[in-house]
């Protein structure tokens, strides 16, 4: 492994660590009577309102359509996700210290797997909230209507316009993945060059 690759891994690990502070995803909801908007920040270990009481307000509005209350404590992934990420960061630093090619590839693969699994899980929760509505308590019932916010992009959900994009932490994570890919590529090419020499 090149020293450049080592540094790339260290920077990637540092970027990954920012996720303990920065939100991964941002969901914004705008409606005629909410010009100031409501919103949620998805974090590695929880879900927050953008403004202090946004989550409360969103849950209160969701009761009209029979949606389950979003209770971050009831989402187990938010409990063990920080530990998995921590393990990955630690392993990454170890990979950089070892400076071997194979651990790098294995680790890079694990990271990619985690990102894909994480995104899928986020989508799955959104699907669950948006589709599994309790019609016995729903006040507004529109046959066939579901309320899953988009993973990326915008969608009209009744009077709300929902927009979902990666937030700073999500971007940092993506960037980290890119750096690791670069490190892996860089390491492979360097080895070929050495053999030829």
């Amino acid at each position, binding site marked *: 492994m090149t020293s450049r690759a080592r540094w790339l891994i260290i920077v990637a690990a540092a970027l990954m660590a920012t996720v303990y502070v920065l939100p991964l995803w941002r969901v914004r909801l705008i409606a005629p009577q909410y010009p*100031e908007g409501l919103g949620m920040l998805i974090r590695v270990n929880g879900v927050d309102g953008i403004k*202090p*009481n946004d989550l*409360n*307000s969103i849950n*209160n509005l969701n009761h*009209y359509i029979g949606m389950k209350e979003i209770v971050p404590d009831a989402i187990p992934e938010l409990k063990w996700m920080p530990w998995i990420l921590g393990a990955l960061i630690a392993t990454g630093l170890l990979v950089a210290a070892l400076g071997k090619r194979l651990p790098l590839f294995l680790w890079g693969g694990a990271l990619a797997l985690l990102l894909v699994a994480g995104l899928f899980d986020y989508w799955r929760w959104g699907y669950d909230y948006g589709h599994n509505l309790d019609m016995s308590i729903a*006040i*507004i019932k529109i046959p066939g209507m579901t309320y899953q916010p988009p993973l990326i992009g915008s969608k009209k959900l009744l009077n709300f316009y929902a927009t979902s994009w990666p937030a700073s932490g999500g971007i940092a994570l993506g960037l980290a993945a890119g750096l690791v890919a670069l490190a892996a590529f860089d390491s492979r090419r360097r080895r070929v060059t050495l053999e030829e020499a």
Partner: protein
Amino acid sequence: MPMLHPYVLEVPMSWFSRSRLITGAALVGTAAVGYACAGGRSASLAGTAGAAERTYVAPGEYDELYAFLSGGFNGQVGVYGLPSGRLLKLIPVFSQHAENGWGYSEETKPMLETSYGFIPWDDLHHTALSQTNGEDDGRWLFVNGNNTPRVARIDLTTFEANEILEIPNAAGNHASPFVTENTEYIVSSTRFSIPMPNRDVPIAEYRAQFKGQISFITADQPGKMDIAFQIIVPGFNYDLARAGKGPSAGWMFFSSYNSEQANTLLEVNASQNDKDYIGAVNYRAAEACVKAGKGTRAAVDYRHNYMDEFSRVARSNRRTSVLQITPAECPGIMYYMPTPKSPHGADVDPSGEYIVAGGKLAAVIPVHSATKMLAAIKNKEFEGELEGIPVLRYASTIAGEVQEPGLGPLHTEFDGKGYAYTSMFLSSEIVKWKLGTWEVVDRAPTYYSVGHLMIPGGGTRKPYGRYVLAMNKITKDRYLPTGPELAHSAQLYDISGERMQLLLDFPTIGEPHYANAIEASLVRERQVRFYSLAENRHPQLARSARESGIERTGKMVHVRMTAVRSHMTPDNIEGILVGDTVMFHVTNIEQDWDVPHGFAILGAQNAELLVMPGETRTLRWIPAKPGVYPFYCTDFCSALHQEMQGYARVSPAGATVALTATTNNKTAAGGN
């Protein structure tokens, strides 16, 4: 196309043809300043090119200034945006306000307690914004109650009056609540001199028994307003005041009239003397005198009412003594400056050098000089003494007189560029004149008979100075007629140029006697959007439906109710008996901006409640006969607002119906 009123004629007129002015048919336009009366409304429109653009605030845009106009006899404050003149809010202060339950809900009733008991009304005359270093800071607005003497603090984060202090030994609290440079004090004084302490004496013994009084009230800490000291003064009528600054820092100036000490037919008997007085009070010297142990504590009875920030429950506390000092025992705390003819305003210019008097019946506007006053005091240039108060010589304090200003000067404010603007009640105009040269440079008619005028920041060190607002006493034909009782009228003028330019004419609520305006940014940024449910410390709070419930203690039934879009918990209540008093403690558990819920119940001899998010408000209800009483949310809160309702069942006295409070057949906590 606006219609011309038939009695507004094309008459060129001269300002000092008195008979025409006072018979008063056509006070429109001014030949004296060079533009002819072109006839009625069109005359007032003549100089207003571009006015529409300058007062137009596009949809979604904000006004440049908040303006707080006193409501006079409505006991409220009207909040307007300027330059649009749009009414933004009414703040109830001294008057019950059925619209939001102010003075009706159990939490707010104590705000209107006085030593005379609960009083549902007052006459709110003047406003004063809090100041830091002589500039408006946008923290609080102080206002006075004239009839039952009180002062109030309005918190400008919530636009709510959260503190009211009664003034003992006072009647007609008119020269109030003018503020000192760092909000150390607001003041109060007696328009009506009265026996002190008030007692049963023949009115004819006015001179012997009646006294005036000037109070300094500590104001810089919310919840801690109190009377620092009262100065006992001769039994005149005290009218208006302003704090000094710069060379006059540490002084407060009070106009007074009725130095004749008449107790009947004042319009004649109090207009005899050529000069009345402006009382100059050195409040730093008064503080020192108090510190030196002078003065006596007089037994009095007054109330201090304050709304706790967290429970949002007001308490009324009785206070029983006040410190009184006299100018005789504290020499140097007060001087009288003779001033022509029943002065109204005593207005200090931004530099603090000039004190401008508005003698209602005077032919000139006299201007006193602070430095001349201080020199005259030093050199003892006195012409006499009244009850221990030295009377300075007129010639010793006067800086100049504005000649032929118009008729009926009342009140003066300043633009910060060396000009003063004086309202002229009789000649119905604003007169602009130059400080120092005392020459009149411009006039603009008002519609009609301007009382006070207001320049944003016009009483401070740094006037904002772009507009002047005329608050008029007579409306007549300005708007579509509405029967005998009309709204008052106000006019906004642009004063950024050499000539005043009429921009806008708008109706106002109540009778604005004075106003303040402040740059919107100083107030807008600190607005509270809702109260924090987590910090709510109301004793009957229900933070969630789970904490709602019902409780009986003797004949008192307490219902702890939550309101959230779009239901109330509990919404089915049984077990109330005739003879019970029911207290509905309604907590709005929303934590979102602009989602108030209301509460009203059939037949309640009470107002509604309007409950802001995170707050708890209580409605007292005494049902008189058995039946089922619907209650509902009165503020359209959501798509299913019409579903937000419930029933309370009232059974005959002695019935054995169990006390229950349920929603959707589920019993709330505390039910039985």
